[in-house]
């Protein structure tokens, strides 16, 4: 086996065992989407409502599941110096960061489908465009993981990473068009919505589930990809500048 692939796989495996599959994280990452799901579903009675709310719950699960993880897998490891060991290993920084983020991406994707599983008990999920939905979920998971990465490498303390990510997360949740449609947002806030990657991701999810969309899907995909690449490059640049000083 290629040594790069081996290193990639083992870093991923170590993170899975050390962080993702640990009870506190399972409770945060799995129970959180479950409770959101239940809360929304119990409040809304009819089929239409559950399906209307589903893309939103999915997007939230991904966003919170991914961004919160990076403060542990990166900021915390940096603080405890074990991250240095990875920086000193012979694999390239890009591969290393990919290995460190793959776990969060997978975790985000799994989190996204927990609400879907729940919804399937209550409503008929026929009519959903699964391929499109899955691609949307993957792209949201990738961009929000890399957003978390960007935050994690820009700070020194775990609590800073958490505070800083809320600074992004909450405005994104309210302005991404999931709970208040983009068309109904106050005019002054709308440009802000279009700055957030989640807006484009949410639009893809909404179209896959309910066939409503405000943005062209090709545009949405392109913008999400651009965000992903951009955030990743800025993050690795930051590591080179701040941590390989």
């Amino acid at each position, binding site marked *: *086996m*290629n*040594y790069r692939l*081996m*290193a990639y796989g*083992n*870093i991923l495996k*170590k993170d899975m065992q*050390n962080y993702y599959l640990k009870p506190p994280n399972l409770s945060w990452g799995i129970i959180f989407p479950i409770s959101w799901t239940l809360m929304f579903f119990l409040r809304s009675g009819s089929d239409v409502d559950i399906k209307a709310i589903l893309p939103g719950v999915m997007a939230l699960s991904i966003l919170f599941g991914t961004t919160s993880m990076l403060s542990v897998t990166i900021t915390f490891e940096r603080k*405890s*110096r*074990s991250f*240095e*060991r*990875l*920086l*000193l*290993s*012979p*694999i*390239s920084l890009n591969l290393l960061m990919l290995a460190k983020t793959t776990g969060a991406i997978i975790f985000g994707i799994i989190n996204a489908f927990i609400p879907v599983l729940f919804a399937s008990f209550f409503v008929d999920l026929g009519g959903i465009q699964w391929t499109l939905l899955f691609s949307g979920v993957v792209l949201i998971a990738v961009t929000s993981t890399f957003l978390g990465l960007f935050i994690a490498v820009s700070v020194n303390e775990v609590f800073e990473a958490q505070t800083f990510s809320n600074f992004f997360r909450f405005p994104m949740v309210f302005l991404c068009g999931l709970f208040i449609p983009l068309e109904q947002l106050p005019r002054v806030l709308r440009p802000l919505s279009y700055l957030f990657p989640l807006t484009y991701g949410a639009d893809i999810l909404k179209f896959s589930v309910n066939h409503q969309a405000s943005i062209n899907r090709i545009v949405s995909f392109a913008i999400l990809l651009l965000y992903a690449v951009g955030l990743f490059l800025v993050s690795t640049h930051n590591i080179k500048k701040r941590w*390989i*000083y």
Partner: protein
Amino acid sequence: MHIIEVTQLQKHFGDFKAVKGIDFFVEQDEVFGFLGPNGAGKTTTINMLTGLARPTAGTIQIAGHDGIREIKKVQRIIGIVPDESNLYDDMSGYENLVFCASLYGIKKQEREKRARQLLKQFTLDDTGSRPFKAYSKGMKRKLTIAAGIIHNPTILFLDEPTTGIDVESARQIRTMIRSLNNQGTTIFLTTHYIEDAERLCDRIGFIVEGRIIKVEETQSLLQEAQREHIVEFKVEHLDEGVIQEFLQSFNQIQVPRISDQTIRISSGRPIELMPYMEFLTSHNSKVLEAKLVHPSLEEVFVHITGVEIDRLKKEKEGKK
């Protein structure tokens, strides 16, 4: 062959110059030590050599590679033991070793075998399944060294391998370093313990305030030291006036140490004792003991670095 060759290496942190243009080389198969006080720039130099810090200026050649541009190639053949453990707290000793090996492309079976073998070698096999955070300081250091050599590196960097651990663990670690070196690993270590340098290193570089002030073979440093004759007097009491008078009367001889109870004098020639005894008795200072001190590297170190610090001070004052 020079396996490491460094020229005009500098590291600035903003206005502060931590390393001020150093030149040195490390011979293949030798143990080379950087000896210097706190803040001398030892760790900063190791960080530049291993790829954790980017030099401000200068060049590094390691095993035929450019140590700056081709650092990833260099990192395949070097092992690094930092001054503080950087393993994973929640993983066991064994898991830590197996994981570290996987970063260097060692196959699963091989790395498990190697991890068990190293735990045994470092007498950690009883505790291999305990989480790293439950290890004592000495055990942590040993495991960190084991992690540093799991991929059989050609060159091993050790930053203060014996600082902060008990005598027995330090002894084990020195034995380890020597046997690694006997098996052909080139060693670069830093320390501020003279005994370590004396016992382990083939050559020593003295580093003070970001400058290398001397690089020399340990043997010839010791011989140089041995040429010094040092005598120490233990006296009942000396008051300040007598001390001053003593220094004035014997201004031909070096007095590396003087206090109210000891006087240490040193010279390149044999020291005649009578004049000193007479001086002390005539000043009512009872001499309790006069003994010959075997010069060690410590004397050389103080000598070399002391002179340098004085010179640096003068330079600074000169600037003002």
